[in-house]
């Protein structure tokens, strides 16, 4: 009897599976009688049906209003990390706009890399990991980079102390230079490195360009990570906050807890982990903004927006080049931005507007197909 009742709910799709499972769990836990269980299921079903969205409910406009109104009250546009001036984060309305416009790069890319407890025992160990993550360029460890005009060579004096601090071997530097600059011969001259172009004739301006290129040669660390800040987490293990994001390389780190690496770059997530992860990232990032502004927006609005942004398989912003530009109706697109472009392009191919959505019907002054405008009455006349 017990299973029979639950099964009936499941068979007839009266309630979703997880709700039925929960009722079953509680029934076992508190030894609820069949009669009571019947009553509980009845109530649950009632509440569940009440929470369903009715046909013709304008969820899009309600979502837009739910974001629009509270966002006018947002304050504080940046958040600073104590002690590190360069590590600020865009939050608030600018960040929300960034997420929903699906900008290719966040204005302040950030990554959080949790360290495995094995490497998280001492502060020194953590700092070592942090230094491994932070990007080191040749310019950072060079004491001096000078051009020898007569010989057309570049002489790089390496800072031994810095290299010792960062635990970088000269061998690694030489290899990286050779890898980064294919057109030069690298000569190790005891205390310095001398670069000489493979070409015989080389102009001075080219040597200068080479010097600038040499400065930015990547030696070690994650490309793009300009600052690192280890912060002790709740579980005692360290989390390294990074300014700059490089998820792909971070996933290769031995010391990192790969499952918990976070980045605020949605496109990077989309590229590395796929569109479903990007959808989750949009929800997380938008929710983070909403939460720390102390604003209450129902999660379903955020989820709905994330769904719409990612439904084509790639992340698309709420812009005229993104999801608004994909609207079926010519009039709806034209009423958003760049109307002339849309009308001209539509006329070139002879587009047809079926007037199925809201804006078109407002323009032609017809009832919008929502709410009371959705159903129509049909009177069947008797044929004589």
């Amino acid at each position: 009897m017990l299973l029979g009742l639950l099964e009936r709910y499941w068979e007839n799709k009266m309630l979703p599976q997880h709700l039925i499972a929960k009722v079953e769990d509680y029934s076992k836990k508190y030894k609820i009688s069949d009669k009571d269980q019947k009553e509980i299921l009845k109530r649950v079903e009632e509440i569940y049906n009440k929470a369903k969205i009715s046909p013709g409910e304008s969820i899009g406009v309600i979502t837009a209003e739910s974001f629009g109104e509270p966002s006018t009250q947002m304050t504080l546009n940046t958040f600073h990390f104590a002690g590190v001036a360069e590590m600020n984060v865009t939050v608030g309305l600018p960040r929300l706009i960034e997420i929903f416009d699906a900008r290719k790069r966040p204005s302040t890319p950030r990554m959080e890399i949790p360290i495995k407890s094995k490497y998280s025992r001492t502060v020194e160990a953590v700092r070592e990991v942090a230094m491994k993550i932070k990007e080191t360029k040749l310019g950072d460890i060079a004491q001096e980079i000078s051009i020898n005009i007569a010989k057309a060579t570049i002489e790089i004096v390496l800072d031994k102390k810095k290299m010792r601090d960062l635990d970088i071997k000269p061998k690694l530097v030489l290899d990286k230079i050779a890898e980064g600059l294919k057109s030069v011969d690298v000569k190790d001259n005891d205390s310095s490195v001398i670069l000489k172009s493979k070409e015989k004739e080389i102009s001075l301006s080219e040597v200068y360009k080479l010097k600038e290129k040499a400065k930015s040669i990547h030696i070690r660390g994650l490309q793009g990570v300009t600052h690192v800040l280890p912060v002790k987490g709740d579980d005692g293990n360290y989390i390294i906050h990074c300014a700059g994001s490089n998820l792909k390389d971070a996933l290769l780190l031995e010391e990192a807890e790969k499952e918990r690496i976070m980045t605020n770059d949605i496109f990077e997530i989309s590229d590395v982990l796929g569109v479903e992860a990007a959808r989750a990232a949009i929800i997380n990032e938008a929710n983070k903004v909403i939460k720390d502004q102390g604003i209450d927006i129902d999660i379903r609005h955020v989820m709905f927006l994330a769904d719409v942004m990612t439904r084509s398989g790639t992340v698309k912003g709420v812009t005229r080049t993104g999801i608004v530009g994909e609207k079926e109706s010519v009039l709806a697109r034209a009423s958003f931005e760049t109307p002339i472009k849309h009308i001209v392009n539509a006329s070139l191919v002879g587009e047809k507007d079926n007037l199925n959505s809201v804006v078109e019907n407002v323009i032609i002054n017809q009832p919008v197909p929502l709410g009371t405008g959705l159903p129509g009455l049909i009177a069947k006349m008797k044929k004589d």
Partner: protein
Amino acid sequence: MVDVFMNERFIGTVENAKEFIKQIRSERRKGVLPLELNFYHDQDYDEVYLDTTTGRARRPLIVVENGKSKLTEKHIEDVKSGAVTWDKLVKEGIIEYVDAAEEENCYVALSEEDLTKEHTHLEISPVVILGLCTSLIPYSNFGGSSRLIRGSKIQKQALGLYASNFLLRMDTDVNVLHYPQKPITKTFMHDIWGWEKHPSGQNIVIALMSFEGYNMEDSIIISKASVDRGFARSTYFKPFSAEELRYQGGLVDEICIPDKEVKGYKSEKDYRLLEEDGIVFTGAKVKDEDVIIGKVSPPRFLGEFEEFNIATNVKRESSVALTHGENGIVDMTLITENEDGNRLVQMRLRQQRIPEVGDKFASRHGQKGVISYLVPIEDMPFTASGIVPDIIFSPHGIPSRMTVSHLIEIVAGKVGALSGQYIDGTTFNAMPEKELRKMLRELGFRESGVEAMYNGIDGREFKARIYVGNMYYLKLKHMVANKLHARATGKIQLLTRQPIEGRSQGGGLRLGEMEKDCFVAHGASLLLKERFDSDKTLVFVCEECGMLGVYDSFKNKEYCTKCGANVGVSVVEMSYAFKLLLDELKSLCVYPKLVLGRKY
């Protein structure tokens, strides 16, 4: 070597800039160099700038030498007795004017006690950190800066006696407050500025409490009896004018009672108040669309139709009339000539403004509010001694804004009113709160300013003690009578056939993009359609080509200009704006074909 610039122009170099500055400073103080000269040593670039140009804002400071103010007690005595004038102090180098650049090289002490050896100047008084309007706020050192800014701005909007000769003036949109008063709680600025010559505001009794929920969100409640006795009444003046313009060909406008033949003649009723000269008599009560200055103008286009027209001299009506909803009394008429020698008639309309629901009031502390209810006197709460407050102010306006000065003024005003004296509320130098409490206790009241009050509706005592006292309240120039607007139907735009905008022209209230979204969000689809029906039109659409057809009323038949009369033409309802869009698309060589279908 330091470069020296005079009025932005290079004039030479000096060896030692510090020595040079020191020298010219003493020369200026001696009166050898002009007093208008200011100098500035830019330490970053090591350059010296001298400036004697016009248009620099300069302010006076007391000169300090060796940590001692050059202005001594004797000077002050002499100034008081009139033996020494300000100009003399400036000439003697006791006070000097400093410009923005020179100020960078100065070290100014706020008060004499702060003086050290390093100081170069002394502020004349610490209150100079405040401007004129801000120093009119009593106890302003107890209020937040943002509220002081608001308070200063609000005082400029207060009604009062803006000019003593207001009866002779033709100012646009001015108000004069009846029975303006001096504030009980005043500051030094009220005395030195001559506030009693142009006061703006009245001393009232205020209670901080809620009343039947009518003073939510900054609205205030006023006793009807106070209003009946003349509280915050004001007069509003509005000028009108008409000019007899001259046109080409010797034609002139004429101020007169327009003839019935005149083009655009209104109705006899509208002209009823005009006297023989075409001008309304002074003291006439005018309202709605009454003509106050009758005027006719020559026809706009001369010549073409003259030979066919029998009445050759059809003139145009161009009278000055009140707009719908306006009323008042003609206060003054002025007939004169303007600079072009044209006859000019100016007229001033007067309206008495009695406080009504929607008028804006404020205290001097940035606490503004709008009247929400005029309470009959019998319903007003009263104190044990029978005092009925004039204004009931919501206590919710206080905590988040932290206008402590507002609260202190209430106690100060109470003390002042009860003891019959003015209370000094000058910033940094006011009568201390402790003193006020002491005086209030001596007068037989609770020192905190609260009193037991009784509900006027049922006579029961309120459980809470109510904070009551006197304060200076301002009536602001924003009154509903100037802003109230609503319409059902009215003028429309020629191009789009949508209602015109603006209260002055009787325009509609726009239901904008976001308001539309609200209707959509509620699913009130048909209501939305009804709201946007203002430019609804019926058009004839050819079922063949989808373009607009034509209706021939002579033949009582509709047809398509392209496909002829043998095609079906349907009547379609749409907004005129959309019809206009279709026309505009056609003008861009885009063919917007309407495909018709059955609605049901």
